[in-house]
C-alpha cells in the first residue's frame, strides 16, 4: 500500500495532493480505514498517510497546514454552519487534523508557521466530568492549537505549576456542577497569587457556568461550547494583531 501511495504521490502534482489532503479533511478521514462522509473511500490514503508522505516528499509543513489542513477545516466549518455537517463530522475532521499536526510538529521548529497558540485545559478540582472538555480538546487541536490536557479533578496548584512551566497562551477551565465551579474562581485566585494571571487568558465553560459567573470570577471569557471557544480565541488573536 505504501509503495502504491508513493507512486500516486510521484505522479501527482503538489497542488493535486494538497487538494486530496483538503478533501480528506473535509471527509473527516483520519486513516485509510476510515469511511468518510461518502463511504466509498476505504483503503485510499487519508489525512495521516497523506501528511506523512508529503513530509517525506519535502513539501513545506506550512504549505501542508495552510493549503491542506486549514483550508479543509474552513470548508468543514462552513458545512457545519449550514447544518450540512453535524458535530461528529466536525470532530472527525478535527481529530484527523490533530493527528496530522502531531506528524508535522517536529518539522515546525524554527519554521515561520507555528501553531495558533498553546492551550492548557482542565476539568477543575472536585469534578470528574470531562466529555465537554474532551470535545473542546479535539476541536482546538483541529483548529491548529497545541493543547495540553491536564485531565480531571485538577487542583489550582497543579494548574499553576503547568502555567508556570508550559507557558500556555490560553487556559481553559471546565466544570459541570454548581458545587465544583467555585474551584474555577479559586484557580484564578491562585494564578493571581503566583503572579501568573497576566500571562494567560482564562476561558471558562461547562453546564454550570454562565457569562455572569465568568465575570464574577474575572475570567477573560465564557464559552458556551467548543465552537464558541474557537471563535473567542480568534477574537483574542485579532486583538493581538
Amino acid at each position, binding site marked *: 500500500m505504501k509503495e502504491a501511495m508513493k507512486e500516486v504521490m510521484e505522479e501527482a502534482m503538489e497542488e493535486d495532493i494538497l487538494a486530496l489532503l483538503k478533501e480528506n479533511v473535509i471527509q*473527516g478521514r483520519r486513516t485509510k480505514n476510515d*469511511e468518510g*462522509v461518502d*463511504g466509498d473511500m476505504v483503503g485510499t490514503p487519508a489525512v495521516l498517510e497523506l501528511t506523512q508522505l508529503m513530509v517525506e516528499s519535502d513539501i513545506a509543513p506550512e504549505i501542508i497546514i495552510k493549503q491542506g489542513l486549514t483550508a479543509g477545516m474552513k470548508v468543514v466549518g462552513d458545512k457545519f454552519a449550514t447544518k450540512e455537517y*453535524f*458535530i*461528529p*463530522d466536525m*470532530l*472527525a475532521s478535527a*481529530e484527523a487534523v490533530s493527528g496530522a499536526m502531531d506528524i508535522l510538529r517536529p518539522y515546525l521548529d524554527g519554521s515561520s508557521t507555528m501553531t495558533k497558540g498553546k492551550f492548557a485545559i482542565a476539568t477543575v478540582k472536585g469534578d470528574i466530568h470531562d*466529555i465537554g472538555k*474532551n*470535545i473542546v*480538546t*479535539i476541536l482546538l487541536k483541529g483548529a491548529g492549537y497545541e493543547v495540553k*490536557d491536564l485531565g480531571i479533578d485538577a487542583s489550582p496548584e497543579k494548574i499553576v505549576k503547568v502555567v508556570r512551566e508550559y507557558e500556555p497562551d490560553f487556559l481553559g477551565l471546565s466544570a459541570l456542577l454548581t458545587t465544583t465551579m467555585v474551584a474555577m474562581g479559586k484557580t484564578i485566585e491562585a494564578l493571581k497569587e503566583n503572579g501568573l494571571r497576566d500571562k494567560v487568558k482564562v476561558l471558562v465553560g461547562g453546564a454550570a457556568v454562565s457569562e455572569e459567573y465568568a465575570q464574577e470570577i474575572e475570567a477573560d471569557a465564557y464559552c458556551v461550547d467548543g465552537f464558541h471557544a474557537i471563535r473567542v480565541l480568534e477574537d483574542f488573536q485579532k486583538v493581538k494583531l
Partner: protein
Amino acid sequence: MAREGILVHSPYERMTEEQIKQIHHASVQILNDPGMISFNCEVAEIFSANGAEVTSITSADNPCWLVRIPEKLVLQAINSAPKIVKLGARNKDNSLFLNGEEPRVFFVSGSETNIWLDVDFPTYVKKSDPGTEIPVPEFHKRRGTVLDLCQAAHLCEHLESLDAFIRSVNIQDKDITEDNKDVNKFFASLNNTTKHVMAGLTSLEQLDNVVNMAKLIVGGEEELKENPIISFITCLVKSPLQFIDDTSQTLMEICRRGLPVVVSSAPQAGSTAPMKEDGIMAQINAEVLAGITLSQLVNEGTPVLYGSVPVRARLDTLNDSYGAPETSQYNIDCVQMARFYKLPCYATAGVCDTKIPGQQTSIERLFSDILVTLSGPQYLHCAYGLLDCNSTFCLLQAVLDDAHFQMIKFFLRPPRISEDEVAETLKQIRAVVATPQKLYIRYIRPLMRSGKLSMPYPFEGDGETDNVFALAYERMKQLLAQPVEHIDPTTTKKIFEEIPGILSRLNVYEERRKQ
C-alpha cells in the same frame, strides 16, 4: 411495489382474550335482541330472505322494520369478508395492502370538514420596546372550496408519513350542488394526489359517474378491480342500532360494484351509546358487524373495512370529546375486535377538541396518535390537519401532524439487536475505552447518513424562541411549491367529455392555456 406503512411488532392491547369474547357474545346477543331497526326496505328484505326475523314496526308515515340477525349470518359474513384488502393508487407504488391479521399501520387523512382555516403572521410592536416587531400567527375561518380541496390533496401528496387521502374538505362553492359534488370532490382529490383516495358519497345518483371516472383513469373495469384507486366510507348505521335509509342503499350499491368500502359506526358514549366501555364496545361492534353482514349478503367477498369512530361525550356540552382518554380506549378496543375477526380495521386517532393549532391541540393529538397507532390498526384515520372535532381543516396543522407521525413511525422500528450487531458493538466499546477521550462520537458518523438515526424536530426554534408555527408554515409553502403529477391531458380531456358536472376551473391544462 406498495407502501410499507409501519408494522407494530407487539401491538398494545387493553382487553384480554376473555373480554374480547365477552364483547363478541354481547354484540351477537344485541343483534338478536333488540336487533337492528332498518329504515330501508331492501335491507329488511335481504335480511329476511337470508333467515333473519324481520317485523314491520312502521308507525304513521315512517316505514321501518325490526331485524333480528341470527349469529349464523354474522359468522358467515365474517368468514366471507376478505382478510386482505387492496387499496390501489394512481401511482401503483402508493397502493396499500391491508391485512386483517397483520398489525401494519397506514396513516390516512380525513374527514369532511366545513371550515377551512387560513393562517398568516401579522407583526405587532412590543410596547416596552417599540423598536421590536413580533410576528404572531393568526387564524381565519372560511368555508371550504373545491380549490381548497385541491390544495389539501396536493399537500398530502407530499407529506412523507401520509399513506392515503380521505377528502378533508367539504366543498361549498356556489356552483357546487348535490348533483355535482361527488364528481368534483373525487376529481379534485384524484387529480392532486397519486395516493389512494377515499370519500363518502353525497348522492347515490353520482356513484356511477365517480366509478366511471376512476375507470377512465386506470383504463377500464378490470383495471379498476385490479387497482381500486378509490374507495368509499359509508355511515349506514345511526347509533343506536339503526340502518339509515339512504346510506344503507349507498352501501349496497357500492358492494354491487365490488369496490372497497368502510362500514363505519360513530356512536357517542353517554348519548347514543352506553358510557361504560363494555357498553359502547358491545354496541359499536354489533353495529359494524350488522353492516359487514349486509355487505356480504349483497355481494359475498366485497372488500370491507371494520370502521370505528367511537367517541366520548363532553359532559359540559354533550359535544364529542375526541381529546378524552376514553375515546382512545374505545378505538383501541375496536382495533382488537377487528383483529379478533381478522378483518382490516379503519380506526380513528388524532382528532382534537381545540379549534386552532396550539399546545392543547398537540397534546390531545399526540396522546391518541401514539396510543392508537401502538394498537396496530391497518388503516388509521389520524386527522391530518383536522381541528375542532372534525369541523375544521388547516394545512399548517397537517404539516405539524406529519412531523409527529414521522417520529411515531421511527419509534416503531424494531430493535436492531443480533449476534453480529452485538459483536460489532463489543469491538467498539473496547476500542473507545482504550482511547484518552473515551468518546463514541466518531462511531455515529456511519449511522448519521444511513437513515437509522432520528432527525431533530423539524420546527425547532433558535435559542429560546418558539418558532414552530412560522417554520411549519415555511415548510407548508415549500411542499405546495413542489409539483404534483396530475392526471394526463388525454385522460383529463376524456373525463371532462364523459363525466358530467366537473367544474372547468379544475382542468389544469385548460387553466394553463388561458394564462
